């Protein structure tokens, strides 16, 4: 197949139309859906196992490693979140960090591995995108959930009327209400959009570069692929960390009065 066909084939999602519906809106990217669900269950399984078998004396290396992760998340929440006691913030941040990290980690698998496995199944032309966070739908789903949480925390800490009053009276005072509303809405809408598109852009660009490197001759592949893969490992962890930290920051801002 030609170069463009190869690239377009690797960038196409496995899209399934929900039964009995028509139109593009009611089709699901079944590869994103099932990969993110499976990775979420892996995360829950590992952490439930650790919580059940946690030992105070003689903890194993497994338990100590995940305690490191939990300590890091705890430290960030303690530094950043100023909204008083909340039982949701630390589990939420841990889930976001581990789930986004696992989804990003799928990008480090070889580009043609999916095709190879599909060839063994007898269907080498099947589409299957392995990286859920390189799909706008997955990243926007997470960031819109964070938006709902931001609005929820704002209402919880200021009351519904208090929040609505703040929408029209901050930061310029009640006389400039339309301008205040415009600024506040832009700020409110920019948060989930930037969260989603940051993660999507990083992962999509990374995957596309891996596909482009896969098209090079064998020697050039190693020369370019190794540095890019090493850099991409940093990006994978960093983007998961950034998503988590920004979620905590936005939730902390939501509980503060202007």
């Amino acid at each position, binding site marked *: 197949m030609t170069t463009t066909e190869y690239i377009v084939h690797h960038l196409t999602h496995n899209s399934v139309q929900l039964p009995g519906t028509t139109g593009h809106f009611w089709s699901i990217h079944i590869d994103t859906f099932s990969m993110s669900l499976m990775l979420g269950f892996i995360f829950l399984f590992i952490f439930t196992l650790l919580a059940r078998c946690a030992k105070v004396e003689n903890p194993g290396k497994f338990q100590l490693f995940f305690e490191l992760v939990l300590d890091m998340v705890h430290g960030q929440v303690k530094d950043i979140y100023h909204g008083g006691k909340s039982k949701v913030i630390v589990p939420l941040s841990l889930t976001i960090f581990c789930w986004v990290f696992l989804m990003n980690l799928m990008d480090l698998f070889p580009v043609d591995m999916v095709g190879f496995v599909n060839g063994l199944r007898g269907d080498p032309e099947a589409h299957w995108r392995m990286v859920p966070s390189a799909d706008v739908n997955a990243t926007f789903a997470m960031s819109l959930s964070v938006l709902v949480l931001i609005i929820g925390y704002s209402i919880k800490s200021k009351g519904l009327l208090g929040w609505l009053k703040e929408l029209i009276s901050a930061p310029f005072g009640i006389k400039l209400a339309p301008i205040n509303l415009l600024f506040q809405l832009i700020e409110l809408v920019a948060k989930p959009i930037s969260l989603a598109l940051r993660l999507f*852009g990083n992962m999509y*660009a990374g995957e596309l570069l891996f596909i482009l490197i896969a098209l090079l001759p064998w020697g050039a592949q190693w020369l370019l692929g190794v540095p890019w893969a090493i850099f991409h490992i940093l990006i994978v962890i960093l983007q998961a960390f*950034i998503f988590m930290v920004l979620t905590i920051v936005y939730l902390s801002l939501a509980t503060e009065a202007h």
Partner: protein
Amino acid sequence: MEGLISNISGFTAIAAAIMIGLGACGTAIGFGILGGKFLEASARQPELVSMLQTKLFIIAGLLDAISMIGVGIALLFIFNNPLLSTALTLAKTAA
């Protein structure tokens, strides 16, 4: 017909180049300033290096964001050009 497609493809290539290039310029300058300030601050107060490094990575992730969005959109235009497909469907219906 060929003129139309060449036109759209040419302009798309230039547009993608501008998007990626200007994004890279902004990110590079931003990282340069950020890194310089970090080195200065860590030379002045070495005991704060680990705390500053965490904040360095947070700000680095924020700087990367818009240029990555630009790269994503530019690559989308190169490999799956919506403007080209619109033009092609219009040309087909007109023909």
